[in-house]
């Protein structure tokens, strides 16, 4: 009996996802927004995430009672479990991209290592902003990194659970989990407008979680030739691998000290202005 009960949300969620895929991929398909001479492709996967978010909103589930009965907490938690398994499939795809480009990746290895330094940019930009917003030491947790799992572990280890720093990192983590995928697919689509090379943007796509990686790199390569796309995806995957390995180290030894320093400097300035 228990098994049948467990199977129901699986079947329901699978059908729902299949319908969402069909609508996003087949009914809507790829669209292009043109602003002047610039055209921004909007991929089916972006529609998939938006449709998914919309139909799982609490308001929608309450307003349309029938739907609310079909899509319950159980289906939602199964969907969240399936994100992890879908990521595994994507992991094999990245392997398929890296192999033909392995020489390129080796050559890109050293610059990719230094790319971690680029992840320190939010400390310089976001900490002053956070202090303007009136945040206290939460700013250190919130703005010293992109706040994925490794960052939580580091901040928790250094400051402890329940501290303002810990609350800061958790708040950004939550935002990232909810709107991160959507935001990274926007970044991936718009990145090209900056004039940065697609390979460089691919490296940038790897800074966050697995779903952020897939959203940003997928959007990024949609306009490239197949050969360029393969190379860009392999760089993105390598960058993400390195971020998970080196990220915690660089946050511990460079990120947090720098964040503490920025925090002190900005607060002093604030005091001076207020005085």
């Amino acid at each position, binding site marked *: 009996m228990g098994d049948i009960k467990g199977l129901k949300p699986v079947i329901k969620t699978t059908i729902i996802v299949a319908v969402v895929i069909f609508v996003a991929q087949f009914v809507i398909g790829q669209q292009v927004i043109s602003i002047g001479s610039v055209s921004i492709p909007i991929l089916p996967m972006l529609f998939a995430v938006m449709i998914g978010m*919309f139909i799982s909103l609490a308001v929608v589930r309450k307003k349309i009672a029938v739907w609310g009965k079909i899509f319950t907490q159980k289906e939602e938690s199964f969907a969240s479990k399936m994100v992890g398994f879908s990521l595994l499939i994507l992991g094999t795809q990245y392997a398929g991209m890296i192999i033909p480009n392995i020489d390129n990746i080796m050559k890109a290895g050293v610059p990719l290592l230094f790319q971690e330094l680029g992840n320190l940019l939010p400390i310089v930009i976001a900490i002053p902003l956070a202090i303007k917003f009136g945040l206290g030491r939460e700013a250190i947790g919130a703005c010293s990194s992109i706040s994925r799992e490794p960052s939580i572990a580091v901040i928790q280890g250094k400051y402890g659970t329940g501290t303002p720093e810990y609350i800061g990192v958790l708040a950004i983590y939550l935002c990232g989990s*909810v709107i991160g995928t959507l935001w990274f697919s926007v970044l991936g689509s718009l990145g090209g407008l900056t004039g940065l090379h697609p390979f460089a943007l691919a490296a940038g796509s790897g800074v966050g979680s697995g779903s952020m990686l897939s959203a940003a790199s997928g959007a990024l390569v949609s306009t490239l030739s197949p050969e360029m796309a393969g190379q860009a995806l392999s760089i993105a995957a390598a960058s993400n691998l390195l971020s998970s390995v080196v990220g915690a180290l660089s946050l511990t030894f460079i990120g947090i000290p720098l964040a503490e320093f920025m925090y002190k400097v900005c607060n002093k300035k604030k005091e001076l202005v207020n005085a």
Partner: protein
Amino acid sequence: MLKSIDDMKFVFLALFLAIFTQTVTDGTPLFSMWDSFIAMSIIVFLSLVAKHYLDSPLPTFAYATIIGIVICLPDTIVRIFVLDSIGKVGFLSCCVPLLAFAGLSVGGRMEELKKLSWKIIVLFLVVSTSCFFGASLIAQIGFSMKGII
């Protein structure tokens, strides 16, 4: 090990949806991708087992990438089979179900986000955007120094 075997049914489901997306995208017949199904299943299974025995801060999907690379590095018939079969299913076809699941799993949590101040959301946008472009900028400089771009 048992848990890894148990998890495989969800992997099969995820794989099926990726293959389904490929069919919806360009009409590739569902059953012509049987080899993709097998190759990816094996790599994912190995990565689940590896994560179980060799735990590290790396996420499991990174294990799948690394194991896929290790299997394909030597120039054997395995490499040709794996590369060919993985290539049949497009990268974007694997992204669409992933993002559909991701969307479905977070809409309900928008309420939590509402409780946070709008300032936190602005901070998240600033933090993630500056991380993305910060890393891209350094890579741009590094890659041009190395002559990659």
